[in-house]
């Protein structure tokens, strides 16, 4: 529903344990979010392994903004706006390629892959005053890389990427630690799922431990998966506020209790002997066993990167009620037996015929239709408020099915929106 004007104050729309429905439906709120969140904070764009060779490039996005991620001949990574400086045509159309220069298909203006304007056809049509230096491609002003993950920020200054990630950077450390080579390969390609729903529906759902037993019961049943039990009342797993809007479903307490290496992945070491040998060689047998018990993180990095154990999801808002999820399989560089299984599981769960994301997408679109109802006006996020507590690092945690993550997301969201007022 959209009966409340956001200009009356974000505190009137966002309370500790409930938020107003208009936040999902009001186009004015969406426009404000673009400026205050998507074009200000750090946003995940891509991974260095997607542009492994000099002059490689891929087409990416920051929300609705079209972005080219290029690696120049010196190896430096650039985030350029995919918009010709002449008449605004998209310069690159292919999802990926290798080229030291880009030529706009509309009038042939040609740019280096670092964004510099190299020239245009029929230059006698200009009187010589055109300054090529000023007509280079637009740039994302700040680019930082952590563990191979490339983030961009449209703000000229502000918190560093590490300040933005805070303690949530440990999620990226944990993810990379499971690769025996210490590197990820995220070049398997990206599936795209478009839903008619507000982007925050997706962010909230990624670390919602309350829904799996309902929404995903069919795939858990068919696959004879024990994942559903991780999100029950008896589970020792935790929901966690990692700060800065980053949230987690920490399943390690359950995996440690069960004490089965690779149990998190639903397999056993004898089925991936090459991977296990590599992990032990890289870490020693004891540490490798710990890694295989704890498994891969389930963390939502605000606002757009969801680490879902063996997949990565990138959330791209296109309109107040339209969002694309880009999904790829996590691949450990140099571990073919494990990679094959992770790719198969990714296709099975979030591929075109997969159950998991189809289940969630149905919920997103039903939520979006429901939130337009005139009454009640509020979305309730009270679950577990009475049993919130601090962990050893001072982070707020709750039980597995509690809405600690959702409250954390909205708390940070409100701080960003108020800061931009």
């Amino acid at each position, binding site marked *: 529903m959209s009966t409340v004007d956001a200009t009356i104050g974000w505190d009137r729309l966002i309370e500790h344990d409930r938020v107003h429905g208009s936040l999902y439906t009001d186009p004015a709120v969406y426009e404000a979010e673009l400026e205050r969140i998507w074009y200000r904070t750090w946003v995940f764009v891509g991974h260095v392994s997607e542009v492994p060779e000099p002059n490689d490039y891929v087409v990416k996005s920051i929300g609705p903004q079209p972005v080219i991620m290029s690696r*120049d*001949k*010196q190896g430096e990574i650039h985030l350029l706006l995919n918009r010709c400086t002449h008449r605004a045509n998209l310069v*690159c*159309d*292919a999802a990926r*390629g*290798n*080229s*030291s*220069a*880009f*030529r706009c298909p509309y009038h*042939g*203006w*040609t740019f*280096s892959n670092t964004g*510099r304007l*190299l*020239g*245009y*056809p*029929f*230059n*006698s049509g200009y009187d010589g005053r055109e300054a090529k230096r000023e007509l280079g491609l637009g740039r994302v002003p700040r680019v930082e890389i952590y563990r191979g993950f490339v983030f961009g920020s449209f703000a000229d200054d502000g918190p560093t990427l590490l300040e933005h990630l805070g303690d949530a950077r440990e999620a990226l450390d944990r993810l990379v630690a499971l690769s025996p080579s210490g590197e990820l390969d995220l070049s398997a390609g990206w599936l795209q799922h478009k839903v008619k729903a507000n982007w925050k529906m997706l962010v909230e759902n990624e670390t919602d431990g309350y829904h799996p037993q309902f929404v995903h019961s069919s795939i858990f049943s068919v696959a004879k998966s024990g994942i559903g039990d991780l999100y029950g009342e008896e589970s020792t797993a935790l929901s966690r506020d990692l700060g800065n809007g980053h949230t987690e479903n920490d399943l390690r307490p359950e995996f440690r209790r069960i004490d089965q290496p690779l149990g998190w992945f639903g397999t056993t070491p004898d089925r991936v002997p090459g991977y296990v040998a590599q992990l032990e060689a890289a870490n020693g047998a004891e540490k490798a066993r710990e890694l295989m018990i704890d498994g891969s993180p389930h963390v939502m990095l605000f606002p757009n990167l969801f680490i879902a154990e063996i997949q990565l999801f990138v959330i791209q808002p296109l309109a107040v009620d339209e969002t694309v999820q880009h999904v790829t399989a996590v691949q450990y560089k140099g571990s073919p037996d494990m990679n094959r299984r992770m790719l198969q599981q990714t296709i099975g769960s979030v591929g075109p015929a997969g159950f998991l994301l189809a289940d969630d997408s149905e919920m997103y679109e039903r939520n979006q239709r429901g939130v337009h109802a005139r009454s009640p006006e509020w979305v309730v996020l009270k679950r577990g408020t009475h049993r919130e507590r601090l962990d050893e690092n001072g982070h707020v945690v709750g039980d597995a099915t509690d809405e600690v993550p959702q409250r954390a997301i909205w708390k940070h969201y409100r701080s960003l929106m108020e800061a931009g007022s």
Partner: protein
Amino acid sequence: MDVGEVVSEFAAVALSIDHDGNGPRLRIEDLKTGHVGYLDALELETLAWLPEGALHPLLDPSLHRWRKPAAGGGTH
């Protein structure tokens, strides 16, 4: 001898080794227009040693291809 095609969203060329002359040379055919150019071994070796950005001036569309013909023919 055909070498193959090199294609991007910006250009498409077919490469082959031409032996019509006294020595081999690389034949480059622009697949969009049929225009053909040649590079000999020394020119190719020079390209291999080009530093970063040295080809950029040649990528200016107005340098040789899309420009007003000079008086008396050719390009200016």
